[in-house]
């Protein structure tokens, strides 16, 4: 397997989502290692701006404009457009597609896998090019994080979805070429209408890409307790996360939930307050670079895998910590 690597960029609010810049950086590295090429594809109603951003990271980007795309969900539109492009590209077309392991990225990856008949490896934490294997080698964490598997494709084509913050984004030396393409609206996939976008007042900042996450669990005790969690997040410039217990109790929205049935995150710092560290939560955050935990229970499971574990009452430690951070002049 060698040849072209395509990055399928992801758009949000007309611009490019940050993970696409990370993946583009990875694509360049893989292209260099494999002796192939890296390029990008951005699909949307008005993809020009996002394509321009992606071109800071890749030598070539195809901006595919699809009329009416803003009124539809992204997955079917993007998958169809990419599949059409690949069909039109003929031989030799791309052999490797890279997408973000995000809700939209997963959706597109799943559809493309079926449309193209290519295998897909998901939630990669690292991708390298192995000349002996003759293709990409993808590292993923499975079984709730208890095993790291390294896999590759058996055929000559493949799709990989990559977790946020697995790669540090680095712009390319120059600005790439953006080629505008008008899509053919082939009705292979049924479109889904986008009727409305609702922003909720209670929504917290997105945690998937946060560098610092301050999370609260059962020990927070109630929705009022999350004000304390939030105060520390603000002091550190981070996002607020939560365990399933807190979400199920209605103290904080589901979008903040980290764990087996919630999100998996890999921040630079995960600060756990009143969280026991049971396996169902651990799987969502155990690859964080640094884990600090505060819990009244000295025997909480999180004590075994945290880097720093403070035995104490979070409602005493957090205000003291916020004060200490402030007095540093942070």
């Amino acid at each position, binding site marked *: 397997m060698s040849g072209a690597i395509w990055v399928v960029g992801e758009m949000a609010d007309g611009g490019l989502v940050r993970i696409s810049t990370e993946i583009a950086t990875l694509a360049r590295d893989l292209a260099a290692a494999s002796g192939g090429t890296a390029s990008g594809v951005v699909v949307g109603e008005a993809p020009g701006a996002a394509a321009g951003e992606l071109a800071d990271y890749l030598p070539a980007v195809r901006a595919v404009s699809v009329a009416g795309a803003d009124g539809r969900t992204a997955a079917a539109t993007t998958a169809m457009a990419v599949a059409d492009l690949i069909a039109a590209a003929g031989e030799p077309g791309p052999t490797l597609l890279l997408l973000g392991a995000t809700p939209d990225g997963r959706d597109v990856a799943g559809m493309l896998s079926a449309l193209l008949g290519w*295998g897909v490896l998901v939630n990669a934490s690292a991708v390298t090019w192995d000349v002996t294997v003759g293709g990409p080698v993808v590292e993923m964490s499975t079984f709730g994080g208890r095993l790291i598997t390294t896999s590759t494709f058996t055929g000559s084509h493949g799709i990989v979805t990559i977790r946020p913050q697995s790669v540090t984004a680095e712009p390319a030396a120059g600005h790439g070429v953006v080629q505008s393409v008008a899509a053919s609206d082939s009705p292979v996939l049924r479109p889904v209408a986008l009727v409305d976008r609702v922003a909720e007042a209670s929504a917290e900042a997105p945690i998937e890409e946060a560098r610092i996450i301050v999370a609260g669990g059962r020990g927070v005790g109630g929705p009022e307790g999350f004000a304390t969690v939030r105060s520390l997040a603000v002091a550190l410039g981070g996002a607020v996360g939560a365990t399933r217990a807190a979400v199920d109790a209605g103290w904080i929205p589901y979008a903040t939930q980290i764990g087996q049935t919630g999100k998996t995150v890999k921040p630079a710092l995960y600060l756990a307050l009143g969280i026991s560290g049971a396996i169902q939560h651990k799987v969502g955050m155990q690859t964080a670079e640094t884990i600090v935990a505060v819990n009244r229970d000295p025997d909480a499971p999180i004590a075994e895998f945290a880097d720093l574990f403070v035995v104490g009452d979070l409602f005493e430690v957090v205000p003291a910590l916020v004060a200490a951070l402030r007095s540093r002049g942070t």
Partner: protein
Amino acid sequence: MRIVVLTKPVPDTTGAERLGPDLRVDRTASPAVVNANDEYALEAALKLVEAAGEGEVVLLSMAPASAPETLRKALAMGAHRGVLVTDPALAGSCTLSTARVLAAALRTLEFDLVLAGADTSDGTGGVVPAGVAALLGLPYLSYAGRIEPSGGRVRVHRLSPVGYDVIEAPLPALVVATQALGEPRYPSLKGIMGARSKEIATLSLADLDVSVEAVGGAVGGAVATTRVLEVRPPVVRAATEIVREPAPVAAARIVEFLQTRKII
């Protein structure tokens, strides 16, 4: 209101997991449970059928032959019957093969809605439902926080980082459920006892049309599109530093720690 729920038995995350000598998931290594996210999909399906006052919820699984016991809990929750696709040739299937087989099985069923859980705890995939929808030409509505069918269409709240998008499509459609739909019910005692007599139909590959024309390519473990090269345990973290000091002292230690790690 006929709903098919894609259900995957997975190893219990609290048990011991293993990949076998052939580096495939050893599904006998620990007790299997229904994938946690699928239970949310099942709960949503049960509520929709109850609200409609008629219809049925059917479980569809592609799994080893030992799966029926694991499906009993889902039947005890209230699903009406199950369909299990099991075949030795399917052991070691990749996600693409799984999507093809499930699509072929769905072609033998009649439904208004297919529901699936957001992803599985053993492979953290989440791409199979999208593949199934693409193969069957079904509208695909993912990450649902709310599902509202009415008048031959379905409206879904798709969770977004800031709230949700309202999306809509005609039925039949495939919807991916999230936890925000509501806690799965505990099986009632009558449900548990009734589950024993509910039907689980078993299909092998011979019972399905898995021709290349029908599903776009070959199926089975022998033609898996991916393979595992190596398995290893994750890097062990260094020993935990434990701090048992009054709050101000502990706070100072945390600040110092974060500074050493260059986080602040």
